[in-house]
């Protein structure tokens, strides 16, 4: 049986096709999110099927997750991203006990029991300061993409201290730092540290090793390092971090 998982996130849509008998990922794909969420998801799904050489009839079930999951009308069921990231990360890294997921519009810390069941979770969806939205704002302000932003952060020798935890005020602060001549890499690293500090406050009591970092923001190399410093523990970036939610959805049978 082949099952499909669709993660309709705030910034991008991800799809994973999973063979439940051979227990392997057959294909995956990613597309930018937009206003017409269902159409975009359907197009991505069709594209991934085509690339995998599979017909729609081969798919025994489609599970949608992510903040836009309810917009995916062709899904058989929906499951929250908390459950799906837990299942996806556990499948990829069975030893994981804590998951940090930083997405485009929220961040989560998920605590796992032996066997991968969720013990508890914390979620920040009220403040952009601990989410990818903060990085997006900085990237837009500096007129560069995420990759370039991340590269710059790695060059930092003395990260700036972004004292404010509000994205709106932080923007003003960043402008001030740049006007003072603070090197760009230090400002970018400062932003990454600010996000990591925010997430570490959210994590609080939940941190039990091994800690896995997932979600699109995990692709930025500087973020894992910033989290390690903020949490004082090793951080493992989950394999294919942007796809763990979709994978978890594909692994679910709707329960």
């Amino acid at each position, binding site marked *: 049986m082949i099952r499909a998982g669709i993660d309709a996130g705030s910034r991008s849509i991800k799809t994973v096709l999973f063979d439940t008998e051979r227990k392997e990922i057959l294909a995956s794909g990613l597309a930018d999110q937009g206003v017409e969420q269902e159409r975009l998801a359907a197009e991505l799904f069709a594209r991934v099927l085509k690339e995998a050489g599979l017909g729609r009839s081969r798919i025994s079930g489609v599970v949608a997750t992510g903040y836009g999951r309810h917009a995916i009308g062709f899904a058989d069921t929906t499951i929250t991203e908390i459950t799906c990231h837990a299942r996806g990360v556990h499948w990829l890294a069975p030893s994981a006990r804590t998951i940090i997921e930083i997405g485009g519009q929220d961040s989560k810390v998920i605590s796992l029991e032996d066997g991968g*069941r*969720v013990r*508890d*979770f914390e979620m920040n969806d009220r403040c952009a300061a601990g989410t990818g939205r903060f990085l997006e704002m900085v990237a837009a302000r500096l007129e560069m993409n995420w990759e370039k932003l991340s590269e710059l952060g790695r060059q930092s020798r003395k990260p700036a201290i972004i004292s404010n935890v509000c994205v709106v005020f932080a923007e003003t602060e960043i402008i001030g730092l740049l006007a003072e001549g603070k090197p760009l890499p230090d400002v970018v690293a400062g932003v990454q540290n600010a996000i990591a500090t925010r997430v570490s406050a959210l994590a609080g009591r939940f941190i039990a090793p091994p800690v896995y970092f997932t979600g699109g923001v995990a692709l930025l190399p500087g973020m894992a390092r910033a989290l390690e410093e903020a949490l004082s523990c090793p951080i493992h970036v989950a394999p294919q971090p942007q796809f763990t939610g979709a994978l978890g959805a594909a692994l679910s049978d709707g*329960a």
Partner: protein
Amino acid sequence: MNASPRKLTLDEWDDRHEQLRRDGLREPTYGGPLRRHVVRDRNFRLQHLQFDNSPAALRLWNFLLTENQRLHQARANGDKLVGAMKDLGTVPVMAYALPSMRAFYPDGAWWTPCLMECGDMLLQQAETMGLDSSFCPVRAMLPAFEHGGHFPRPDLLVCSAGAICDDFSAIAQRLEHLGHPILWWEMPRRRQPDSGETACALPGGLSAPKIQVDCVRAELGRVGQALGELAGKHLDDVWLADGIRAANRVRRTLESLRRTVYAAPAAALPALEMLVAEMLAIHFCSDREESIAVLDGLLAEAQSRARRNQFAVSADAARIFWVNPVADLRAMNLLEEIGGRICGTDYMFTHALDLIPEDLPPLEALARAALADPMVGPASDRAARIVRECRANGAEALVVSRIPGASHCAREGEIILQFARREIGIPAIELEISPVCDAMRTGLRSRLQALVEIARDRRPA
């Protein structure tokens, strides 16, 4: 008239009400279609709620939504009105012990912005009076006092002071400063007796030093004297004992209702109606005798459904223990929409659900009941009771609902969550629910749904 349990929208209730009338439904004077509370009172939130379809629920809603009318009518009839504040359940027992006297909670206006979807502008007006959104929504009572249009101005305002939240103190002090005199009475912060101190047992399995009980008894004696002067009668022990027995009648019925609905394998009544029903314990919705009739009706309906094996919520629903009332009533519907059900509650007034001792002198009994207030003791006491009830009712998860701006104890939610995780190991979350939570709906839904998924996932295979 006994249809299978179902949730109805307001539109569907219009049709159902018409049908019930044709079938001979007999309603109290405050009865009628729910729609009129939208048209006449601009309670727009009702259009977005889902209601239980029983005549007993209809009566409950009509009783709740006609309270201000009832108070105005009582004033017109010459009854004395007492505005009780903060103590949640003690002063009204005393006030209703006197003939021609009613007590209500003006701070109950905190739900008005929800019901009117902020169309009342109470919160905005409170801001112009110096109480911005960093304060608890109870601040809505301030403009309600100043500009009228909601409840009538009470003849006497009584408010506890001392072990109450900072927000409430600030709001009540501002109210007095605006020209509404308040009779303050002291409520000490409950503590465990020191060694060598005489301990007094309180309802709910708590205890306090005798010196604190004596203090509260004396303070309530002062309140009783003021109530008597207002009524032109002496509030003696005979009347007080009668008042306590009548209050206990309400509490016993509520206890039966809570047991029937919360402890059972499936819920016979929805969470929303149960929330409203529990609120009747505090001040009887301004009519003690009628509140008994309303609760009797709900209990009969719940028991009848349980006997017929018909339930308002699926038996498979995750059993959630809910702490604190929600600012937006819609949240209770949402919980059931995503596969949860309430199996126990602590809506901040568990002391108003416990029986007042009938074997003690009345003021002593009331003092002990007042001191059992979860809001006047340490958060750990409250957490311990919550954990006890979670265990007793088989809770699979815990929700602590936060009221934006409320600061009874900044860390109370965290203390309760930690206690529950440590003692019973169930997943637990804290949620903030604003007076109109539409904009937060996606996030709120995700959190609740995740909690339900986790609870179900943890069930034995």
